[in-house]
Each structure stands twice: as C-alpha cells, then as structure tokens.
C-alpha cells in the first residue's frame, strides 16, 4: 500500500529559559492512503505536539523541531519554505482541533471562517492556471484520467464533471491546447465570494447542520458543542484535503454526541477518500473505526500495528495496561477498575532507559538503563526489551497475562 505520510525520527523540544525538555524523542510513523490511523496515549505523551509539528504548527519559540523528516506526496515538509507549506496546510493536510469553542474565532461569522479558507486555496491565479495546464497536457485523450484530475483539482462532480471532461477533452484535441486550457481554467476556477458562500452552505449541510443558510451568518458561541465540532469538521474538509489530522475531535463532547460526530467524520472521510490521523486518549473510541493504531508514551511510539494486532496480539506491556484499564460491563459491579500505577514520566526527568520502565510490571534491569530497540513483525512494531531473546522468562509472564485478558474478552 502506498504511504501518504511518512514521518521519520521526529524530534521536538521545548525551551524555557535555559532548560529544554524533549517532548518528542524520535517518533516515526506513517499513514497509508485512505486509512484511519489512530494515535493513542495519555495526556502529555506528545500526540498533539507530534502531529502539529508535522505541519510546523507548534509555537516557536518555545517549541523547536530538532530533527526528523515528514514525507508527504514526494516532498519533505520540513524542508519547505513557509509559503510553500501554507499551500499544504488546509488544502492538502487540514486539522480538526479538540475544542471548537476556542479553536474558532469568536469575532468572525462561521461562514466567513470557512470561505476565507476556500478563497485562500481555491481561487485561481494566472500562475495557478499555467501550472495546472501543465499537469493536464500529458493526460491527452484519456477521459478517465481527466475526470479523476478534475475531481481532485477542480472538485467537479455529477453533471458538472461530465461537462468539464468534455470541454477539456475538446481542448486537448486541438493543436495548441495550452492557451485555451489556461483561459478555460481561469474562468472555471474563478471562485467568487458568492460561490464560496454557496459552497460553505453546502459544506455545513454535508455535516448535517440544520438550516445552514441561517447558521452561516451566526457566530460560534451561538452554537451547541456538537454543532461547533461539526463546523470545525466542515471547515477542515472544505478543500478536500488528502489527510486530516483530528486532534481529539470528540473529547469536549457529550458521550451521545461523541459517537454521532465520529460516525459522521468516518463517513465523510470515506466518501472523500481522505486519510485521517485520529488522536485520542481513549482506546475505546478507535476500536471500531481505526485501521491502524499507534500507542504513544513519553514522546515515542511504544507499539504500532493494525487494530486487530493492537487489540488481540498485543506486544507492549503499556498497551496491555491500557486494554486492561478499559471499563467493562460484563464484570461484576463494584470491583475496582484496573489501572496502570504511577504517573506519566516528567519530561524534565526522563528515565535513561525505557520511558515506561517506572510503571511497568515486567520491568527488568536493562529497561532502566538502555532504551529498547524497535522490533518488527510484518509492520507490527514494538519498542520493548521483552522481545530480546534473553528475556524469554519475563515474556512468558506477559503472555500469560495477555492470555487471561483475551480469555475474559472472549467469554
């Protein structure tokens, strides 16, 4: 499968005065095309910092990206200039933030916040038209590819798509197609304020906001919590990005609305063919919808694999702890919930070995001293000393514990 986003060995630190703390300590992960990748971890494990760093969104100072590569569609985003990155942000990779109340501008109408994004990215300049014409020329006489290209770049759909395809194919049959195509693109792509507004209404309707014509002229504080998050989603999807980073999109919501919003998001993402990075601290949230899951702890990925692998072939003690900590309805009432003892490590005083060593039930001497290497089986990766051949005894204990959990689950 093709990798859409490939993040390699990201390192991010925060400086305050003379001290500096490492928030992300060599994290690598990737997102495939049309996939829901979930990143799970406790508060402070670095989920948001990692993903926001991919778009260089963290405030700098104090934040600082110390190293790493972020490959997206053949480019390393870390090496792009700010203005090049601006064309990626929102248009190709967009972000849904946790609390829409603070993440949306309180003094700007909902509609304006959506249209400003459309107008920023989808307004066609002469240079854009020239560049796009360049892309079309090699597609000569291949209506299928032309249609695909139109869907991607001009967002044509339905009858419009058929018309556009015919028009473009017509131009391409001419001797000197470049000029007419540029002209046509300029006309076709000129996104007026009124059109952007229409599109915003359509977007609000697509996230099931009732009465979008009215809502568009309202402010964010006039909406309920679920409605706000819908606006946020509509905005993030407005330019049909290839990747959406959803940073705890449902944490601020009621449990009932939570499921609704997640369903809506998953449905829209699937229909657009977009990939998504879903950040959450709740494994239960992602159980049903994620294709792959990465478990973060102390600024690193402890384990990454498909949903199945994470839930049923758990490799890391931390993941197992999270699974055991999920509340269950089938157990007798009144029993204490299972927890992972202790707190996440202080970033100022990270253990020199495995970050989880201070809380791990299977901790060995080596865990406290050296960072575990990453082991991999068919894309299922884990960072743990248990998978060193010398730790066979300890691993048996872990496997037995895992067995117990799964037997319970199956019952």
């Amino acid at each position: 499968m093709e990798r859409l986003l490939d993040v390699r060995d990201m390192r991010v630190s925060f400086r305050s005065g003379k001290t500096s703390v490492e928030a992300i300590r060599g994290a690598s992960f990737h997102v495939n095309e049309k996939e829901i990748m979930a990143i799970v971890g406790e508060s402070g494990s670095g989920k948001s910092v990692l993903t926001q760093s991919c778009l260089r969104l963290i405030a700098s100072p104090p934040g600082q990206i110390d190293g790493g590569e972020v490959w997206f569609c053949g480019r390393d985003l870390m090496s792009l200039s700010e203005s090049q990155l601006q064309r990626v942000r929102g248009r190709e990779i967009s972000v849904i933030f946790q609390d829409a109340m603070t993440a949306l501008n309180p003094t700007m109408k909902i509609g304006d916040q959506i249209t400003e994004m459309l107008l920023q990215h989808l307004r066609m300049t002469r240079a854009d038209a020239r560049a796009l014409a360049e892309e079309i020329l090699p597609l000569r006489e291949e209506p299928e590819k032309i249609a695909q290209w139109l869907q991607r770049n001009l967002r044509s759909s339905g009858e419009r798509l058929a018309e556009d395809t015919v028009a473009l194919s017509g131009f391409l049959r001419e001797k000197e197609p470049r000029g007419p195509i540029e002209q046509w693109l300029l006309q076709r792509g000129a996104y007026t304020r009124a059109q952007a507004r229409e599109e915003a209404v359509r977007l609000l309707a697509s996230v099931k906001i009732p009465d979008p014509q009215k809502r568009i002229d309202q402010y964010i504080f006039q909406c309920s919590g679920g409605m706000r998050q819908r606006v946020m989603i509509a905005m993030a999807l407005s330019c049909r990005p290839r990747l959406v980073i959803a940073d705890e999109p449902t944490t601020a919501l009621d449990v009932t609305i939570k499921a609704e919003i997640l369903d809506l998001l998953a449905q829209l993402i699937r229909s657009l063919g977009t990939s998504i990075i879903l950040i959450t601290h709740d494994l239960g949230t992602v159980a049903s919808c994620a294709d792959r899951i990465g478990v973060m702890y102390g600024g690193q990925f402890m384990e990454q694999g498909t949903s199945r692998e994470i839930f049923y072939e758990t490799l890391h003690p931390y993941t197992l702890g999270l699974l055991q900590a999920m509340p269950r309805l089938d157990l007798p009432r009144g029993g204490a919930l299972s927890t992972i003892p202790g707190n996440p490590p202080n970033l100022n005083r990270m253990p020199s070995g495995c970050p989880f060593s201070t809380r791990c039930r299977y901790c060995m001497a080596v865990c406290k001293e050296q960072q575990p290497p990453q082991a991999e089986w068919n894309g299922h990766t884990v960072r743990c000393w248990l998978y060193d051949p010398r730790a066979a005894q300890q691993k048996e204990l872990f496997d037995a514990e895992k067995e117990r959990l799964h037997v319970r689950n199956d019952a």
Partner: protein
Amino acid sequence: MLKYVVRRVITAAITVFVLATVTFFLLKLVPNGLFADPNITAEARAKLYAHYGLDKPVFEQYLVYLRNLAHLDLGESIANPGRKITTMILDPATGNGLPQSMRLGLCALVFSVPMGIALGTLSGLNRGRALDKALIGLSLVGISIPSFVVATMSVTVFGNILGWLPTTGFSTPKEMILPTVCLSLNPIATIARLMRTSLVETENADYVKTARSKGLKRSRIVVRHQVRNALLPVVTILGPITASLLCGTFVVESIFNIKGLGCYYVESISDRDYGLVMGLTVLFGTFLVVANLTVDILYGLIDPRIRLKR
C-alpha cells in the same frame, strides 16, 4: 442589542444625575468666600445673594439648580457679571471654550488612536526584536514624561530655538501641529502599550493556530484574526481617553494660550467662580459618561458575543 443600549443609557443618565447632585452639595460645603470682601457692604451683599438666589434654603437652591440644569441653563457667571455660563462654555461668537477644546481634542484623537494602534501592532508583531524594544522604550517615555515638560520643551525647541512652528493659538494648520502632538504623546503611548500586550496574547490563542492550520497568509491572520480580537481591550480605554482629550486640557491649553475649557477651568477656580466650576465639572463628568457609553456600544459592535446576548 437594543435592550443592551437602553440599559446602558439609563445607567448613564443616573450617573450624570448623581454627579450633578454631589457636585452641587460639595460646592455648598466650600466656605463661600465669594462676597467676603470687607469693601462690600452688608446691604450690597444681601442684594448679590438675592441676585444669585443664594438667600434661599439650600434644598430649594438645589431644586432650582436641577430645573435649570434640565434646561441646560447653568446660571450666571459670578466673575463675569451678566454673562450666562452656558454661553461662555459654548461661545458661538468667538469660537472659544468648548468648540476650541473640541477642535484640539479631535485633532489629538484622530492622530493618536490610529497611531497608537499601529505602533502597538508593529511592536507586538516584532516581539523581542530591536524595533519592539525601541517602541517599548519610547512608549515608556511617552507615558512617564508629564505633558507640561513635553509642551514647554517643544515650545523652546521648535518655537524659540529652531523657529519652525508658532507656539500660540490654534487656528491655522501650522499652529495646530505642536499642541496636537504634545497632547497626543500620552494617549499614543497608552494605546500602543495596551495594543501590544493584547496582540501578543492573541498570538497564542487557539483560533490563531487554527487560522495557521488553514494555510492562511500571515498578513491575513494578523489583520482578520489577531488585530480584531486584540482591539477589544483597547476600545475600553478609548472612552476615558476621548473624554479627557475633548474636554480640554489644563496644561496644553495654558501653555499654548488656547482659549478652551481647560483654560476656563483654571481661571474659574482662581476667580472662585463657583457657578462656572460647577458647570464645567458637570460637563466634564457628562462627557466622560457619554464617552464610556459610546465605548460600551462600540464594544457591542466589535464583539458579537455582547451584541447578540439576550
């Protein structure tokens, strides 16, 4: 919004009423030495008391004062017998008094508000850089140097030594420059400092991060997202600044010999012209109240959260 405005207007009216009452009784408490001159005979004094209505019981005087005030009649000046205080303040014939003060104040206001906002924005956007530090230093100077120092210094330098600008009056454009600039320095510095702080605060706001994640250009983020939100606290201090600028300023008017209300205020106190003192105090107070009222309404226009609250 209408309810909001009505409520504000009623509060403002009550404030003005209380102010007028307190001013009246406070001035009654001042030992009335106006006609204490030993050269005045008892008979003449009684006549004067009767003329100004001072022979009646205090409460009756208060009622008369209120009734006249409602008709915008502030009585007769004591220092300038025969002249109505209202006419002195408005002075349509010579253009002195309130019109003069307002011209000066308006000039200063029009100069200082955009200037302060622009400098504050510039400083906030370049936080930590040399430009920011220079602007902070300048604004500190602008706030801490009293206006009489600035005014006298600029008169000396630009008027006497360099001879570039006239130092008295306020009618020709050239005459307007020095007083306007002197009067503006303090408000510019105040506005700039507040604007800077406020803008820096928005820098870390979630919605600014969202705006960046949308791929907007920096200029658009600053103008549409940051400045507008940063203006809210700045608008609050515009009320008192406007009132103090429009109502005349003792120092600048005195130094540049501009016959405005500030000038009158100083004179009326030394003349013990209590009617004029009372009238000017009520006028200043009303101005302050009206300015604050305007700010409250303006606030509603900028911040939809206030406008649309039921």
